[in-house]
């Protein structure tokens, strides 16, 4: 792969759910070594976008290329080949509840390589050490805290030394210290090992700390469209009202806090057919 080939290339990605456009003509590239932050308000399609990039969902139209290969039309077998080159950290950690912490981290190592058990054990210990969880190998996921689960998830995502790391809200629900730890781990991966990272987040502190490129998806009338793209400095200097509102966390702005009075009354009393009778 030449230096110029983007690690991820998304072109005109459209996804509709029952006629509702969740992703609306997205195009962007992620180059090697970048930490791309995908941000946007709740329901803007961030997680949906991520699921399209990892091949878990198929787009209505458009193309997704990973490492220069088109994945939208791929069969499960070919996709499995591409998937060995990236790791993913899920929002909830998504650890297998039936396995211990150590077995969870060992799983991808055992499944994709024929290594001696002593080497697998060593690798598991190294990965857990890296996320600061030495000595927790024998606990079940149900016995550790949410933050620890996420760190185990990260250790598992990094188990095969991937070229590309996806993180779905890696810092949601963590305390501020743990947020920095996860951020620093991600930074170490990208800076020291040249891993490319794609991080979905709406934690602005963490986004500006680790991001080298950022994109923002719109909500409301701009649902599923790219409303801003650039380096963290460019995003900070953005004149787009919705972007400004989002990164400053203001309650009112282009995304309205409340509807105007006329809209409000109309929606409340609305069309008779639109009324619903509740019975609980």
């Amino acid at each position, binding site marked *: 792969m030449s230096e110029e080939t983007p690690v991820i290339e998304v072109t005109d990605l459209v996804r509709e759910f029952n006629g509702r456009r969740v992703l609306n003509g997205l195009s962007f590239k992620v180059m090697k070594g970048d930490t791309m932050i995908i941000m946007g308000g709740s329901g803007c399609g961030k997680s949906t976008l991520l699921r399209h990039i990892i091949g878990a969902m198929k787009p209505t139209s458009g193309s997704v290329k990973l490492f220069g290969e088109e994945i939208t039309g791929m069969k*499960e077998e070919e996709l*499995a080949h591409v*998937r060995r080159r990236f790791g993913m950290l899920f929002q909830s950690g998504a650890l*297998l509840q039936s396995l211990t912490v150590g077995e969870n981290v060992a799983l991808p190592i055992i499944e994709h390589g024929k290594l001696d058990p002593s080497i697998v054990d060593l690798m598991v210990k190294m990965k857990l050490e890296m996320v600061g969880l030495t000595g927790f190998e024998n606990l079940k996921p149900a016995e550790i805290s949410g933050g620890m689960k996420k760190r185990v998830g990260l250790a598992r995502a990094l188990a095969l030394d991937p070229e590309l790391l996806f993180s779905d809200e890696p810092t949601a629900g963590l305390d501020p210290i743990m947020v920095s730890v996860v951020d620093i781990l991600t930074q170490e991966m990208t800076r020291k090992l040249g891993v490319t990272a794609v991080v979905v987040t709406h934690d602005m502190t963490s986004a500006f700390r680790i991001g080298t490129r950022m994109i923002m998806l719109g909500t409301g009338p701009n649902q599923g469209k790219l409303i801003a793209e650039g380096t963290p400095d460019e995003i900070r200097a953005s004149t787009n009202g919705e972007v400004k509102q989002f990164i400053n966390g203001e309650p009112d702005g282009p995304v309205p806090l409340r509807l105007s009075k006329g809209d409000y009354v109309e929606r409340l009393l609305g069309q008779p057919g639109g009324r619903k009778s509740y019975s609980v």
Partner: protein
Amino acid sequence: MKEYFVLNGQILYWTLIAPFRGQPFKIGEVFHQMILIGTRALPMAALMSFSIGLTMAMQGANALKSMGGTSFVPYLVTLSILRELGPLIVGVIVIGRSGSSVTAELGTMKVSEEIEALQVMAINPVRFLIVPRVLAMMIMLPVLTVFGDCVGMVGGWSISHYALDFTTPAYIFNSLTRAEPWDLYSGLVKSVVFAWLIITIACHMGMGVEGGAEGVGQATTSSVVWSLLILLITNALMTAIFFFA
């Protein structure tokens, strides 16, 4: 419906073809599932089969007494258990306790993103989760059926011995001289077919779960209801085939 048949195809591929292409399933997990699906169902299967053997003997004795044919009670019990009630009762027990738990487990894994995590790690969920469960069920249901047959015959013996004055050797002699190997085999053929149906329906329902805890509950209910329905229909069809063939 289409997805169910696709799943069947995938199970066959990952069981019969993929292991020869360097993608084996986990043998250890098969044994683990055999314990969960099969061994743990032993006490209930035993209790149910015993009480069915008991009931059959009492009802049979009642009906046959009027014709002076109580000597046919052991034969009646053995035949009905081997051919019909053994596989059926054990199937029903396994649907209720193992099929439902497989659906609930896979469904919970689906809603907590565990299945998706496996896919992203390029680990095929059919190979990793489903094939061991299918094999465990295919092995353990016939085993449980043979066990249930034996316990059911003991149930028949207890009535025959204590209420109908059969000696133990007479009971055994009466049961086994008239029963033929084919009576046992036809029951086992049934149990193999039941095993496939129960586990594929359970896995299909589990993998199809959507929408959190409520979805898991609904899937578990439909898994049990559909399995029972299809089990009874298949049983009738297979008995008809054996009867007319």
